[in-house]
């Protein structure tokens, strides 16, 4: 630390001073001009609440939201990975039509604002799918059951199950294009000789991918894939727009009911930061470990 301070120059101090002044100004504006009353002491209660009637702690809005964000991120990643592999393989297909279709999908997602993409996927795809499968009725049935603890553990509140599934599908479709690009880069990084050797012993294209190309590609794409997972967690905030009750949605709710605008958003930002930064540190460490091995 002292080493760090010694290395600072006057320019660094100037930058620090500007930052301090900037935040100080914002602070004064909020505190003085807006006459904002900080109520930080109420925030913990919205993370873990105390139910005085039942005399027990329960996960309140923010923690519920965080839980939903975790669930959605994990399921959506798995789905996005599956779709991404298909897309990535399609992008490397020998068949021009298949290549073009995969490319078109990617270009759509790249050139339409994410918010619009989310609404389109929601109304055109996931809603239809949920109606077609009659998920509403099915999940209400489970919600009414007594011992649905295991369901609630995996999917949260069962009444909201269709909305959760919507969120997972929309998010997975959205991320799959980028996962697909990572997979494509991985496949293309494998020397051509590998595929030729596989084919020369009679492997089909599928066997070639399954046993030779993808296992090698996966080792290579693990770091970008881990980053994409973190990106997905951040991107998951966008599905609050379709009323999926994840962390951002719950924060909006909390702000609406309690008016703790700054506290709630700062807390939520901190949650996202801790999760994403923590994961990136863990992945970086794992990567270093793998390099040594």
């Amino acid at each position, binding site marked *: 630390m002292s080493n760090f301070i010694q290395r600072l120059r006057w320019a660094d101090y100037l930058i620090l001073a500007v930052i301090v002044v900037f935040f100080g100004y914002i602070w004064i504006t909020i505190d003085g001009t807006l006459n904002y009353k900080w109520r930080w002491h109420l925030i913990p209660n919205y993370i873990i609440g105390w139910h005085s009637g039942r005399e027990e702690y329960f996960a309140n809005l923010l923690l519920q939201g965080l839980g939903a964000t975790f669930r959605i991120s994990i399921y959506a990643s798995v789905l996005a990975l599956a779709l991404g592999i298909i897309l990535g393989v399609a992008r490397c297909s020998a068949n021009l039509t298949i290549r073009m279709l995969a490319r078109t999908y990617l270009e759509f997602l790249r050139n339409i604002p994410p918010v619009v993409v989310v609404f389109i996927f929601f109304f055109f795809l996931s809603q239809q799918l949920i109606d077609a499968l009659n998920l509403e009725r099915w999940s209400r049935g489970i919600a009414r059951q007594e011992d649905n603890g295991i369901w609630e553990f995996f999917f949260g509140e069962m009444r909201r199950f269709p909305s959760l599934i919507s969120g997972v599908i929309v998010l997975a479709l959205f991320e799959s294009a980028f996962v697909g690009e990572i997979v494509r880069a991985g496949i293309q990084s494998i*020397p051509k*000789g*590998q595929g*030729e*050797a*596989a*084919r*020369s*012993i*009679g*492997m*089909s294209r599928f*066997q070639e991918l399954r*046993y*030779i190309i993808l*296992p*090698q590609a996966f*080792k290579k794409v693990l770091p970008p894939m881990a980053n994409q997972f973190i990106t997905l967690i951040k991107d998951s905030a966008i599905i609050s727009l379709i009323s999926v009750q994840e962390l951002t949605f719950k924060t909006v709710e909390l702000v609406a009911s309690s008016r703790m605008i700054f506290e709630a958003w700062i807390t939520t930002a901190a949650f996202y930061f801790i999760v994403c930064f923590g994961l990136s540190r863990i992945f970086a460490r794992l990567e270093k470990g793998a390099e040594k091995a």
Partner: protein
Amino acid sequence: MSARTPIIEATNLDKFYGPFHALKNIDITVHQGEKMVICGPSGSGKSTLIRCFNGLEWHNSGKLVVDGVEVYQGSKDILKLRQEVGMVFQQFNLFPHLTVLENLTIGPMKVRKIGQAEAVKTARQYLDRVHIPEQADKYPAQLSGGQQQRVAIARSLCMESRIMLFDEPTSALDPEMINEVLDVMVELVDTGMTMVVVTHEMGFARKVADTMVFMEEGHIIEVSPPEQFFTNPSSERCRLFLDQILAH
């Protein structure tokens, strides 16, 4: 080489890479059990020709029949054919994520659907054959170039194919490792397998070849038995080429 049954028959083969004419009107027949050595300057189309034999490249016109199967892009029989036609590459192309033993068993197990126990047994037999039984559990990157190429040969042998194609199998090797690979290939000669070898190792060629082929600029210039090929080639170009490489 008793019965002269053709096993590879190419007639009027042409191959283009875009506008580039890589194989020009190739006519060649390889007979069952024959050892054919193909040589010629770099870029003359040697690799392209033998890669057509197992459908790694597709010819654009002419006719190619290998082991009774007509080879053309989109043929349903090509996967089956490739099981009968092994190939050894200049760059070895071993599967780096698999151990030596797994490199040898994956083809028989996944393609020929042979049980693991039997595949392992066969694999060990062929590792003995290429004189590296002790390397079975290593990964390719832990082996020397010569050892890697011998594993690659064993990988092809494990498929028990009837034809083996070699594309400059010793060109990527350090000089001191060339002989260990050539020795293994010489030992294969007695098995009666059909071998088509692209190489500039003329000592090896003299020892094993039944037929010598010289290619240049996509043409086959000369096809003759080794006695004639090395002493009295019919084309001037072939003579010049031989003088060049034999001078070293």
